[in-house]
């Protein structure tokens, strides 16, 4: 099965912190990212992932009565925003949940496991 693993976190946590502090936070979570990439690589060598620019930088596009309306993001005023995603092919939901639980954001934010429709 193909799964999208969506990474949610409160991006305001990163507002107004110094460059040094941000680097420190990244370094702290590094071992967990390494474990994740090892495990994901073993489960699906073709797995891919991307980090997204902060949701506040997003543009929301709607076409209403033929007119394109562009507003500033984020798309939804929720506390947690999508910050990245993985696309991976895994044997089943149990394995997808195991991999998702290894993503550091599962601890400070949340992960959404979404099976991809295959036709």
């Amino acid at each position, binding site marked *: 099965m193909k799964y999208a693993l969506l990474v949610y976190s409160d991006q305001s946590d990163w507002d107004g912190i110094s460059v040094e502090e941000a680097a420190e936070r990244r370094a702290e979570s590094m071992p967990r990212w390494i474990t994740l990439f090892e495990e994901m690589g073993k489960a699906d060598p073709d797995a891919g992932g991307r980090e997204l620019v902060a949701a506040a930088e997003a543009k929301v596009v709607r076409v209403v009565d033929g007119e394109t309306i562009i507003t500033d993001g984020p798309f939804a005023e929720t506390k947690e925003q999508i910050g990245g995603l993985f696309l991976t092919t895994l044997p089943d*939901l*149990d394995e997808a949940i195991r991999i998702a639980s290894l993503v550091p954001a599962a601890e400070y934010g949340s992960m959404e496991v979404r099976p991809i429709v295959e036709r």
Partner: protein
Amino acid sequence: MTPSLEATFRAEWPRAVGILTRVLGDLSLAEDAVQDAFATALERWPRDGVPRSPGAWIVATARNGAIDRIRREKTFARKAELLARLEDVPADEHADLSSIPDERLALLFTCCHPALAVEARIALTLREVAGLQTPEIARAFLVTEPALAQRLVRAKRRLRETGIPFRVPPDHLLPDRVPDVLRVLYLVFNEGYAATAGESLVRRDLCAEAIRLAKLLCVLMPDEPEAFGLLALLLLQDARREARVGDDGELVLLGDQDRRLWDGASIDEGLRVLRRAESLRRPGPYQLQAAIAAGHAEGAAPHVIAATYAALEQIDPSPIVRLNRAVAVALAGDVEEGLALIEGIEGLDGYSYLPAARADLLRRLERHSEAAASYREALALTDNAPERRFLERRLRDVGG
């Protein structure tokens, strides 16, 4: 359908559905094939007699039906693969089914997967593992047939679309998943146990179904002490069913129950099963609950029951368990201590048994005006008629 034919159907259903699901990789396809085979059986068996090995007959017929059905299918991605896999299923109506892996445990774990809503787990388990028909389940759960059918369709779609695996979970997941299965069986039992005498028999039969499923689980997981613990608990509770409610529909508390109404055979079986569980030397919450039920059945000393509750609280410190322990401590003689334990419980707001229990302890301590206030608090929280009559009587006793 005659009762014996119905019993055969229920017994053979999960075995056939399990085998076909393993081969086809899809519960809905498997269920359709087995359903067709049962329909054929219903036509032929009353006329030609029940085959020597009904299970093998059902599997062979379901296999042939599935092959025909898939051949007719024009657009089916995995047609050739599925047909090849079906060829491996014995077509012999007298085959020895024990030579094929028993997939009933995989079926049970799949139906109880935590990614399904609890209601969906219960409905699926009763349909696929207990082999009950949709109308029977709908009547037992007091929902309409279309609503229940819809629930089953959604659950099966979710199994397919989210990739819920059809298997017995690997060892590292088992400690998490076994309790999920036990809980579904316990909930089925409780639905039946809550049913009153006036309600339909199929609803009360849920207790018997839960016991049947727990027995099956014990056969399939002979080294899992909690499976035996659950079975023992269900048997011991079921044994007291007739004594729980008085002639006028009044709730009868354990201490006041007429022991002659207890089912002795069921108690003996429960005690035997509990000993089997305890011999495996890995205690768990169901075994401890069964030990408490066994203590009541055997007339154990109140302090022994209080001690067992203390052990249960160690593993399961939920507010309900803490409340039960508080009451047990009070019954063992230390009413003040029981009352103090009740005052320390949080997270049971709106639960009528908490003020009711507090009221009862206050009454024993002859603190009547406080007891009356607690009885009133409990009355404000329950609509259950027998329960209300009981509380009102006690309220009058303390002069409220």
